[in-house]
């Protein structure tokens, strides 16, 4: 081989072009956003609609429609009422005149002439339809000739009357010609009652397509689609200047002042009529210029659709069409100087992100936004609702939107933007995959309003339909009541969902269906919403102040009263009597709507949803106080210990480790219940480092016990009569475990359980784990003990601290956690999950709330956690929570790697099931492993996912009317064995006394001795012993220890009287051996079997359980008996 120089070598290995591309692609950004791009590409491929097969026969249908319309005979001018009645007589077609219908004596003239142009527009031509769309509409515009209109037709709905007549004529012809293959209906274009259109629904497939279908019956070849025929005007029919937002075009029959009132919606609809073709051209141009445009439109369509937005007025009036127009305008020239805001060289995902950014920054619902070089007349635009003004075509793109839908889209865009900026979160799924339009998951309060019963009010202002006029009024009132800046905004968002107007047959006139309901959603500001006293304007002497007060009084009515506050300020005040955030909001809404709109008075036409979940757990407003009192008691306890003078070592730290002391137990901590002995709250204590600990595990445990004895004695001495202490034994399996704890009971009722942390213990255990010369079983035990040690003395104190912090940061966190724990209890899962895991699961939707932001009520917090649990694929994803707020990318990477390693060494997922890592613990198993066992096991985790999934399905199906109790009903029929505990017997164990003789038998002991003891207890005032653990839990632990292999037990809250159990399906018939995992019986012999087999002796096991429980068990149900 020839020697080659260094230079030469370099030349011989040119970097391939592929590599260059890879490097370029790799350096485009952070890992997460790269993944987002790749995933978005996958999505685009997945949702792509194959036009050839999906929309088969559309072209054919379009041609037939065109032919039919072209064949219509033109006719000369007729009087409008005359023409309409003629049409009705001849074809039984009701002309869909917009309200108010033309008067009988009006002498407007209508005529029909051939359309000047036909065109197919919309997403059919731009090929941006997707598979998952609700309905696939093919839009065909029919341009009406200009000579059937007159110059002044833009006034007083004349244009729309003529348009409606024109449409009716087309409908008559179409019905005649294509009745055989399609159904012809009227509907409103995007729910706009000014613009009726024809909707053609193909009914039966044409002959050849049915033949095809019969050949391949399994394959659905075509989708349900419909063709919409939209009559429109040519671009320059009316001068644009006449259609400005601020002009008043509805003048006839109105009072003088009303006649000068601007009619922006009417004007914009009229302007939009002339813009179809011009927008079609715009979109085509941009499509050609910008390669990523189409995919950005599809991504936008998915994004909008997952959030329930659509072009229809009832869906917010911002759909795919508006999205693509906005994007096109920004690409063409968005800013005031006519320069393009976005570059055409951006890719699809970049365009998508840019538009989200635009929507999140531009709050066009509040402040009009002009696209292009026009200056809006501010004073008129101010009350026109949301304005996105296309200055070239002089049209407000957002004219169908309402203030609340603009606010909602603004919020969604903000949330999505913060997600896209968060490199740590999964950006793709919340943005595109999750469906986020379930009202209960979206809003803290949902109210349903049956507005058919509401008093009719004449809608003077706009011809936009009664529902809209009403909801607009509703919104203004609610906004003033709930989101007033002066009072402090109670609601972050108010949204009103109006019903959709369905299509109707040609022979009828349009009438909105009866019993329609309107849904009002409110998103709380949880701090402000809890306010029970509203301070209005100060009552002063000046005219301005008086005016303010009058305004306030006019709005709030009798509720407003004058009150004197500190520093002698006298203010108009509102006092609300409810206590919880939800109830306050309900009270305000009921009051104010009743006052101004006279609804909700009867109570039947206004109903509220969302609170029912939290009322399942009896949340009391005083709970917060009780939790805080427990914390206070704890600090007293801490001080008492620190004040002890005779302790040989300095106290370094005393930390609480139980849910009661971090605001997250289902029931608030209760002291001094007469029915049960004290249930102490767990705490740990650590001392300054000392070399005096003996270097042996057992000796350390004994020293700790001696220490506890000493602390107990000192405490009793320091506050005689106020404190009593009991030293308790752990149910330890070996001597090197923690063997003792100290229960400290205050006279006030607060009680604490103290365990000592010794640093040396950890060091010794670590050494044992690493020492390869030791026996395997000793090392395994040391590993378990070390994990338990770290859990108790490192993780739980830190966890308690961080949850306590978050509880103050998010007021809704504590009730969400409690509700979630109640759910785990109800489904008998809580004995399989650590409390800390459940808390972290709830915390997750607060820290990574996407696609929303952090929940502001228990219901949303709970439901979104369920959504998360249902979607969490724990087999292939770790849960990473950045509790400290400073996790680096490298740390995340390390956690991810560790997770992959776990899955690789344990592909059956038997040892590490849920992997949860936080800022405090990167190992991922601290919260989900207890005593060396995975908590939960795979079975329990699978069951959790299944239950969460079915809960989410129920919420989706039933909407707001879902009965929350149904989410909490355990399905007992799933269990093989049900052990019903006797609540009376359980209660009798709750209270024990030191004088109770353990060897004496209560049942057989005579009533005399019992009463003697009772008397004694009463006489000496002896206090009962604390509870080591709830008796049912103790019993369950014993059962678990005895039947770890054969039965899996399920149990919920401490007062849950039923234990469910299922047989381990892996315990099959097997050959006999000495160390059987459970009780077996010889199987009935079958011919041909050589060896004698044994099978699980289920009945004997159940009988054993009955013997263990004796009087504790009321009844055991076995499945199938």
């Amino acid at each position, binding site marked *: 081989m020839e020697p080659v120089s260094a230079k030469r070598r370099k030349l011989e290995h040119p970097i391939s072009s592929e590599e260059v591309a890879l490097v370029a692609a*790799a350096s485009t950004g952070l890992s997460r956003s790269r993944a987002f791009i790749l995933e978005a590409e996958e999505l685009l491929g997945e949702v792509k609609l194959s036009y050839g097969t999906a929309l088969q026969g559309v072209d054919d249908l379009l041609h037939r429609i065109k032919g039919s319309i072209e064949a219509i005979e033109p006719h000369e001018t007729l009087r409008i009422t005359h023409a309409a009645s003629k049409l009705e007589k001849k074809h039984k077609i009701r002309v869909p005149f917009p309200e108010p219908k033309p008067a009988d004596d009006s002498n407007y003239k209508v005529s029909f002439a051939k359309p000047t142009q036909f065109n197919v527009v919309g997403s059919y031509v731009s090929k941006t339809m997707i598979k998952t769309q609700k309905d696939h509409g093919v839009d065909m515009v029919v341009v009406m000739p200009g000579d059937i209109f007159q110059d002044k037709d833009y006034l007083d709905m004349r244009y729309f009357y003529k348009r409606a007549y024109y449409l009716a004529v087309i409908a008559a012809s179409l019905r005649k010609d294509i009745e055989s293959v399609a159904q012809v209906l009227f509907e409103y274009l995007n729910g706009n009652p000014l613009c009726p259109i024809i909707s053609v629904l193909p009914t039966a497939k044409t002959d050849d397509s049915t033949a095809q279908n019969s050949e391949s019956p399994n394959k659905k070849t075509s989708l349900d689609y419909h063709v919409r025929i939209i009559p429109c005007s040519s671009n320059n029919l009316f001068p644009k200047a006449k259609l400005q937002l601020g002009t008043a075009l509805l003048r006839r029959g109105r009072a003088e002042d009303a006649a000068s009132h601007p009619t922006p919606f009417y004007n914009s609809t009229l302007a939009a009529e002339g813009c179809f073709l011009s927008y079609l051209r715009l979109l085509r141009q941009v499509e050609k210029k910008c390669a990523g445009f189409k995919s950005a439109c599809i991504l936008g369509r998915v994004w909008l659709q997952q959030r329930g937005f659509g072009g229809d007025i009832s869906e917010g009036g911002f759909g795919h069409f508006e999205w693509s127009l906005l994007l096109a305008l920004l690409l063409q020239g968005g800013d005031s100087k006519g320069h393009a805001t976005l570059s055409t060289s951006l890719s699809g995902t970049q365009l998508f992100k840019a538009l989200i950014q635009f929507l999140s920054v531009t709050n066009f619902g509040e402040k009009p936004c002009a696209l292009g070089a026009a200056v809006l007349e501010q004073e008129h635009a101010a009350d026109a609702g949301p304005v996105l003004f296309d200055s070239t075509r002089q049209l407000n793109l957002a004219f169908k939107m309402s203030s609340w839908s603009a606010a909602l889209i603004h919020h969604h865009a903000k949330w999505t933007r913060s997600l896209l900026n968060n490199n740590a979160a999964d950006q793709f799924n919340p943005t595109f*995959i999750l469906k986020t339009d379930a009202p209960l998951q979206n809003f803290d309060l949902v109210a349903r309003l049956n507005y058919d019963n509401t008093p009719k009010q004449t809608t003077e202002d706009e011809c936009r339909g009664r529902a809209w006029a009403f909801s607009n009024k509703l919104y203004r009132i609610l906004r003033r009541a709930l989101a007033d800046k002066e009072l402090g905004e109670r609601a972050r968002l108010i949204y009103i969902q109006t019903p959709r107007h369905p299509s109707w047959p040609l022979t009828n006139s349009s009438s909105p269906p009866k019993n329609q309901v309107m849904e009002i959603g409110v998103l709380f500001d949880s701090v402000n919403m809890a306010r029970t006293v509203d301070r209005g304007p100060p009552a002063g002497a000046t005219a301005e102040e008086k005016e303010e007060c009058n305004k306030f009084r006019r709005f709030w009515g009798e509720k407003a009263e004058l009150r004197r506050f500190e520093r002698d300020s006298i203010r108009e005040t509102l006092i609300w009597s409810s206590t919880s955030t939800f109830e306050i909001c309900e009270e305000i809404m009921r009051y104010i709507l009743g006052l101004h709109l006279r609804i909700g008075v009867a109570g039947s036409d206004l109903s509220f949803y969302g609170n029912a979940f939290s009322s399942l757990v009896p949340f009391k407003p005083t709970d917060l106080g009780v939790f805080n009192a427990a914390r206070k008691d704890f600090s007293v306890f801490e001080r008492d210990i620190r004040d002890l003078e005779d302790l040989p070592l300095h106290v370094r730290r005393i930390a609480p480790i139980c849910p009661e002391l971090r605001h997250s137990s289902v029931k608030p901590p209760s002291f001094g219940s007469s029915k049960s002995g004290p249930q102490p709250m767990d705490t740990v204590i650590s001392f300054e480092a000392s070399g005096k600990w003996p270097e042996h595990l057992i000796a350390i445990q004994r020293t700790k016990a001696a220490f506890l*004895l000493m602390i107990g004695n000192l405490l009793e001495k320091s506050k005689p009569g106020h404190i009593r202490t009991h*030293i308790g*034994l752990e149910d330890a399996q070996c001597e090197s475990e923690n*063997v003792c704890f100290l229960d400290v009971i205050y006279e006030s009722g607060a009680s604490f359980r103290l365990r000592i942390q010794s640093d040396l213990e950890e060091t010794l255990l670590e050494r044992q784990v690493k020492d390869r010369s030791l026996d395997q079983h000793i090392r395994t035990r040391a590993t378990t003990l070390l994990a338990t040690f770290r859990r108790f003395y490192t993780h739980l104190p830190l966890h308690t601290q961080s949850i306590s912090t978050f509880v103050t940061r998010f007021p809704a966190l504590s009730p969400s956690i409690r509700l979630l724990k109640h759910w785990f209890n109800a489904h008998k899962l809580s004995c399989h999950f650590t409390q800390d895991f459940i808390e972290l699961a709830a915390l997750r939707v607060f820290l990574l709330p996407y696609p929303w932001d952090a929940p502001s009520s228990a219901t949303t917090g709970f439901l979104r956690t369920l959504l998360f649990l249902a979607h969490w694929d724990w087999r292939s994803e770790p849960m990473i929570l950045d509790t400290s707020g400073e996790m680096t990318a490298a740390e995340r990477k390390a956690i991810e790697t560790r997770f992959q390693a776990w899955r690789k060494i344990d592909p059956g997922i038997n040892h590490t099931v849920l992997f949860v890592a936080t800022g405090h613990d990167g190992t991922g198993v601290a919260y989900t492993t207890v005593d060396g066992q995975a908590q939960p096991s795979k079975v329990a985790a699978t069951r959790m996912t299944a239950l969460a999934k079915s809960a989410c399905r129920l919420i989706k199906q039933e909407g707001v009317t879902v009965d929350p109790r149904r989410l909490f009903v355990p399905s007992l029929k799933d269990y093989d064995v049900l052990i019903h505990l006797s609540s009376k017997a359980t209660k009798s164990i709750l209270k024990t006394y030191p004088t109770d003789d353990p060897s004496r038998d209560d*049942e057989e002991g005579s009533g005399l001795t019992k009463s003697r003891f009772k008397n004694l207890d009463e006489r000496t005032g002896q206090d009962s012993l604390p509870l080591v653990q709830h008796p049912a839990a103790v019993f369950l632990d014993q059962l678990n220890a005895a039947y770890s292999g054969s039965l899996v037990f399920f149990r919920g809250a401490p007062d849950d009287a039923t234990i469910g159990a299922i047989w381990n399906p892996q315990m099959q018939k097997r050959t006999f051996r000495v160390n059987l995992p459970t009780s077996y019986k010889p199987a009935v012999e079958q011919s041909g079997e050589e060896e004698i087999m044994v099978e699980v002796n289920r009945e004997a096991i159940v009988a*054993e359980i009955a013997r263990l429980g004796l009087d504790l068990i009321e009844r055991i149900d076995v499945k199938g008996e």
Partner: protein
Amino acid sequence: MSPIPATIGDFSVLPVLIPSLPSFPKSVVHYIYVRRNAPKVPTADDSRRLFFTNVPVDSTEVHLRSLFTSLVGAGRFESATFEHERKDDNSEAPSDAQPLHAARLLAAHGNKKRKRDDAEEVAERARDEKAARLPKSWTRTLHRSGSTAVVQLADEKSAEQVLKAIGKLHRGGSSSSSKKYPVWPTTLDAKLVPRLGTSWLKAHNVLSYPSKAALQTAIDNFSALFSRREQEAAELAKRLRNEPDENGFVTVTRGAGRTAPASMTEAEEAKRKMLERAEKKKAEMTDFYRFQLRERQKEEQAELVKRFEEDRQKVFEMRAKRGRFVPES
């Protein structure tokens, strides 16, 4: 129904009739498997011992005694040892606890602990153990389901008889046979066997809070024992210091000179500090030369490409799981 086999392998099948209880009103049959005791290390008493497997979880010596009485009459049964009791022997007893350095010394020196076989020492050990043991928190412990026990009978003949009696149970008609089965005693006197159920749990709660005096005594006894061991260890160390081993080396032990060797904890601390210092020094030397900088940049670039590849791989894997990229409806 075909009859239950009388034996499985070398085990005899002992069916036991379990009477019904109000909470589970059904009488069922439990099967215990019995054979002669044959441990790996035979002992003298093996001939009069029987090995039981699959004993009920609530078995006690009293239960088994009563079972034997109904099988072969009174006076044959001597004692029973259950699985977990035997295991306890292996696990660390508190009296075994001795300071780590003493254990290490002994191990290092190859000087195996003297076998203390003489009866006096054994008795002393037991006494120490008993004194140092913490009070029990259960009146009765349960056994793992399917666990074993060894029963010692009066003599070899009794063992024979028991096995014979078990064999007899299987003879005769299958329908009537269950009537002959011995019955598991459920109504024993509470004085002999503490009852389970409520009173058992109640007693547990009471027993979990032993009197402070009792606990203090146990702890004191243990401390005395432990410090005695420590003392012994110190003496041993002293002895070893003066005694070269077979290779002629003298072991370095604690308390030899004025500067004692550091304790393990101190040594670990020192090691950690040293490592830290080394780390710091290393950190100072990075990016010192230009080639280091260049190499680092190259590595970063490679890392970037690698991560991109990983992302692509991940997306590819996700695609394999169907439905990941379809928006929910």
